[in-house]
């Protein structure tokens, strides 16, 4: 059944990529179109979420970067420029390759991730480099993790614990178990 789900994901991802590409090309004409910006954000969000569900962790990670960039676009912090459209189209190409190829060359994906992370965001500092040493006295934020099941269930149904997470680190990688207690 898992293979079936993966096949359904492949079909859905291909459709979403087509929609993304068409939305990006329309955005080049009308860069402030909020409906188009929302569509791009949602499509990347779906690829990220479903990719992670069906074992496409690398696709999910790349889609996360594009989604984050478009979240900033939605908030008006990043303008839609020709460069951003090009980067998004390259990202679509790469995701398509990764959907087709079970063992894709990840070097292009890494380059795209770096480009998103270095993308100038005039209002808010974007995700810093994961390998940067911990600055002394860096502020921390709290991340909730679940009590062993990998789920976080609201209210009092499952025990929840909080761990401190330095703010310079990225959100935990999809599907890892290292944060479980």
């Amino acid at each position: 059944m898992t293979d079936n789900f993966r096949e359904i994901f492949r079909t859905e991802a291909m459709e979403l990529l087509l929609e993304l590409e068409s939305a990006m090309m329309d955005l080049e004409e009308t860069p402030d179109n909020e409906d188009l910006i929302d569509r791009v954000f949602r499509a990347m969000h779906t690829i990220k979420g479903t990719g992670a569900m069906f074992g496409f962790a690398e696709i999910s990670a790349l889609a996360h970067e594009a989604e984050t960039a478009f979240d900033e676009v939605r908030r008006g912090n990043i303008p839609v420029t020709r460069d951003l459209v090009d980067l998004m189209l390259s990202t679509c190409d790469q995701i398509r390759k990764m959907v087709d190829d079970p063992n894709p060359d990840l070097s292009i994906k890494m380059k795209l991730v770096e480009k998103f992370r270095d993308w100038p965001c005039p209002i808010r500092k974007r995700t810093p480099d994961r390998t940067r040493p911990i600055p002394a006295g860096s502020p921390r934020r709290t991340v909730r993790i679940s009590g062993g099941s990998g789920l976080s269930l609201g209210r009092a149904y499952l025990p929840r614990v909080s761990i401190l997470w330095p703010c310079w680190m990225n959100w935990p990688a999809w599907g890892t178990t290292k944060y479980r207690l």
Partner: protein
Amino acid sequence: MAYTIMITDDSVSIRQMVGFTLQAAGYSTMESVDGADALEKLAQAQADLLITDLNMPNMDGIELIRQVRGIDRFRFMPILMLTTESQDEKKQAGRTAGATGWIVKPFAPDQLVAVVKKVLG
């Protein structure tokens, strides 16, 4: 009598995975593609649990939760949100709107069933 669960997600992969898993666990399921579709279908059917995605076209999950909570017969129905790690703000908005709990994507089928069993008793 088998419980009926409404699944609302714009992703066909997620709908099928959640639907298949819950049916295999003995539940009846209904599917809807966004908040507006879910409301329309819930107006004509009974459901014991709503599982909804948050980011959807037409009507998002937060608005769906708010509207469902405004319908008398669904006031106490459990509602679970499907969220991702990066959606803390939305998760809070969903709780304020009346969601019972949330499940973070990605999740495995048996984890889903465990949570559904907990909220349906």
